[in-house]
């Protein structure tokens, strides 16, 4: 949410009509922050403590090995942390039952039950669940949201499916909570609403849910809601507390969905905290209904708030350094055209890659009133030779192609006429054609990356997380061939094709790089040159043929060759050759560009993967700043983010 929309939302907030949720909290005071909880993505209360899920844990001081994905239990008052090491793939949701049994949703396709004391652990839902994204106890049973199945499943403690609801309505169900009457509230990230499943007369969950909310930035509207927690007020009804991720706030609604309040101003630059919120993913309220925990995986932290009946006063805007872009997820380049996604506006920025710094020329999509706006850009690519830009919009279920028209003989200038929509292809219709051709069962592709076969200009390659495959299709998606990834694949995120035909796929959840040397079989890499992958999110081939893997957990890139040697480049920080959750990589004429997502920028590395540029929109550094690795020491060491510190 931009500053202007934030101010407008605040004004609208002040004018909003009082709702039925009159007893619901209207504000919250920041109580404390627990930092360095890597990828803190789900949180729940357990008595006087909170439990938080992390996809992986920091290595102990001086140790080289990273521990497995895990849970940690933190007491609220004294901040004592107990690690609960658990055999998880990628924890995405957590809840504790009345008898103290912890249930953890694992994107790897199971729910893990940990009995009190931690000695007994049971994995349930194998073969039933696909990509669990949230979990809550429903009496002695469990409700599990599954973003892969687009449904919520009611399971008993053995994992037997008792009911499946929301099929056809839910698009990307995430966190959920169960009301005292047994009804269910689910946050749907792609549908931008909450779903309420009442309980029917026969005690089952209603098959047809009621939608609460819509997409937007105004009070009561959502932009990627990821979780909901309930506060029961007895006869006064209940309150819904929502993690509104892309609006960077927590919203409170009455049980009828009427807006009550929001709080948590958008952090204006990475690492800003103390009540400011940055991409909240999960919320939990304690049993007394007075303490709120907010998990922010983007910031590796959980913030605790004390709920109160008064609204928060308007927050002063301030900060020592405003950011100038929100580059995230994907990046692509072919020859002279570089494209990056701005995650806040869902705009695709076009830059001339021939220059240092790259010159911004145009943007596709973005905020505003024009017709072509993206909902959730999940992949971008530039078609070689034609410089056509491909954009996969997961939210609208479209794959779109844009012509780019500019005079390369003249200096690059900002010109919004450069990109022009050429065609838009419907992924549901493509799926229907594929099924008719014999590829059933097949889900509508969730395209996470796009590439082009250097030896066949008539084909586009779509990395598909829904079917865990690479789809080779003709350029108009009339037909395609499914090339499935190994069974261990969970959430393939980036695809790279080398000039010599090698193919590599990064899968951060499977913690693997899949590599193919022109043949049909895949090699599964769990390390490169002896350096294990923790969360490999990006992959590319260097000009010298080396493999480059960005590791979002290590805050570094691993550069090397399989079975030979490798080196780590980068460390956590906000200076040059420092990263905060690096993601996609692509080759440009002046080196490999790595999206430094947690710092909202990109960095470029030339020959030998040597750093040569840090860039965001309108702000670039081509000389390393003091304090950066390999540069002169910083005169103000506080500008570096130290590991292990609290936000």
């Amino acid at each position, binding site marked *: 949410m931009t500053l202007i929309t934030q101010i407008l939302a605040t004004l609208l907030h002040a004018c909003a009509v009082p709702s039925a949720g009159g007893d619901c909290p209207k504000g919250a005071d920041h109580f404390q922050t627990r930092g360095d909880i890597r990828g803190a993505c789900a949180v729940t209360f357990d008595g006087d403590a909170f439990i938080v899920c992390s996809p992986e844990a920091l290595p102990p001081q001086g140790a080289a090995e990273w521990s497995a994905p895990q849970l940690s239990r933190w007491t609220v008052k004294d901040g004592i942390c107990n690690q609960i090491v658990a055999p998880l793939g990628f924890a995405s949701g957590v809840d504790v039952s009345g008898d103290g049994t912890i249930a953890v949703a694992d994107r790897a396709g199971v729910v893990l039950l940990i009995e009190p004391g931690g000695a007994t652990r049971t994995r349930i839902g194998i073969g039933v669940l696909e990509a669990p994204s949230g979990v809550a106890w429903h009496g002695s049973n469990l409700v599990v949201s599954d973003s892969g199945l687009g449904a919520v499943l009611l399971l008993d403690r053995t994992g037997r499916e008792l009911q499946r609801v929301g099929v056809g309505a839910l698009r990307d169900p995430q966190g959920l909570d169960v009301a005292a009457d047994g009804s269910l509230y689910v946050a749907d990230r792609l549908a931008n609403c909450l779903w309420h499943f009442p309980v029917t007369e026969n005690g089952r969950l209603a098959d047809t849910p009621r939608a609460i909310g819509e997409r937007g930035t105004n009070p009561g509207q959502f932009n990627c809601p990821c979780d909901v927690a309930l506060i029961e007020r007895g006869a006064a009804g209940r309150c819904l507390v929502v993690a509104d991720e892309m609006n960077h706030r927590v919203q409170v609604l009455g049980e009828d969905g009427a807006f009550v309040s929001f709080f948590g101003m958008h952090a204006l630059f990475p690492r800003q905290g103390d009540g400011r919120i940055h991409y909240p993913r999960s919320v939990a309220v304690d049993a007394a209904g007075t303490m709120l925990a907010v998990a922010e995986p983007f910031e590796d932290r959980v913030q605790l708030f004390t709920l109160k009946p008064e609204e928060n006063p308007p927050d002063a805007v301030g900060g020592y350094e405003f950011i100038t872009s929100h580059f995230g997820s994907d990046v692509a380049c072919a020859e002279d055209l570089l494209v990056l996604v701005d995650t806040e506006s869902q705009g695709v920025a076009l830059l001339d890659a021939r220059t240092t710094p790259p010159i911004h020329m145009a943007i596709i999509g*973005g905020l*505003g*009133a*024009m*017709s072509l706006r993206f909902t959730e850009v999940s992949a971008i690519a530039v078609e070689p030779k034609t410089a056509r830009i491909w954009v996969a919009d997961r939210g609208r279920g479209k794959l779109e*192609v844009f*012509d780019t028209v500019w005079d390369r003989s003249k200096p690059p200038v900002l010109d*919004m*006429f450069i990109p*022009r*929509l*050429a*065609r*838009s*292809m*419907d992924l*549901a*219709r*493509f799926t229907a*054609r594929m099924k008719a051709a014999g590829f059933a069962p097949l889900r509508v592709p969730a395209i996470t990356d796009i590439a082009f076969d250097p030896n066949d200009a008539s084909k586009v390659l779509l990395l598909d997380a829904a079917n865990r495959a690479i789809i080779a299709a003709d350029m*108009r*998606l*009339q037909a395609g061939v499914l090339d499935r990834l190994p069974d261990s694949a969970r959430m393939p995120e980036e695809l790279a094709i080398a000039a010599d035909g090698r193919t590599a796929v990064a899968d951060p959840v499977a913690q693997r790089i899949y590599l193919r040397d022109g043949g049909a079989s895949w090699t599964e890499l769990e390390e490169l040159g002896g350096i294990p992958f923790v969360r490999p999110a990006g992959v590319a081939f260097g000009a010298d043929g080396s493999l480059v893997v960005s590791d979002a957990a290590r805050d570094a890139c691993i550069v090397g060759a399989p079975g030979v040697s490798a080196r780590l480049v980068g460390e956590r920080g906000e200076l040059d050759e420092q990263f905060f959750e690096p993601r996609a990589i692509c080759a440009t004429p002046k080196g490999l560009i790595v999206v430094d997502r947690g710092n909202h920028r990109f960095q470029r590395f030339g020959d030998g993967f040597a750093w040569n540029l840090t860039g965001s929109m309108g702000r670039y550094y081509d000389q390393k700043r003091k304090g950066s690795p390999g540069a002169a020491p910083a005169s103000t060491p506080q500008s570096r983010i130290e590991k292990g510190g609290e936000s």
Partner: protein
Amino acid sequence: MIARAFLLALSLVVCSACGDEASRPVAAPPAPWQTSAKAVLANSADGTYAASWEPEGTALPDAEPFNMRFAVRRADGRAISAAARMSVDAEMPHHGHGMNLVPTVTRLGAWNGDELLVASGMLLHMPGRWVLSLDIEEDGVLERTQWFIDVE
């Protein structure tokens, strides 16, 4: 007797006229308009369609609603599917906005290989460079045809 003979003769005349009418080919209604020399022609982005537009009336009105006529055909000579969806829009990329009205597109039928359509409720509400677009979607693939319009 005379009256019966008269009725028989009359019915024969009527039936004969009916048969003559049934066997005669139905004349196609005339095209609603003939594309004029002012029509601006363009090919769609992938070359699947060729289309032209012109304003209804003599010229583009200045900041007033108007109707726009289109003639479009497939480059491969096939008829455009009856299920095809067509939409018309106009935007000002440098200003980051579109029109204040949403036009309605009506397909009128095909004449001499050209599908004729009219977009009612167009409004280019300020001077500058506009991009006019005609989108045609067949079987899940939408393809765009675009023109620049400079409004003085």
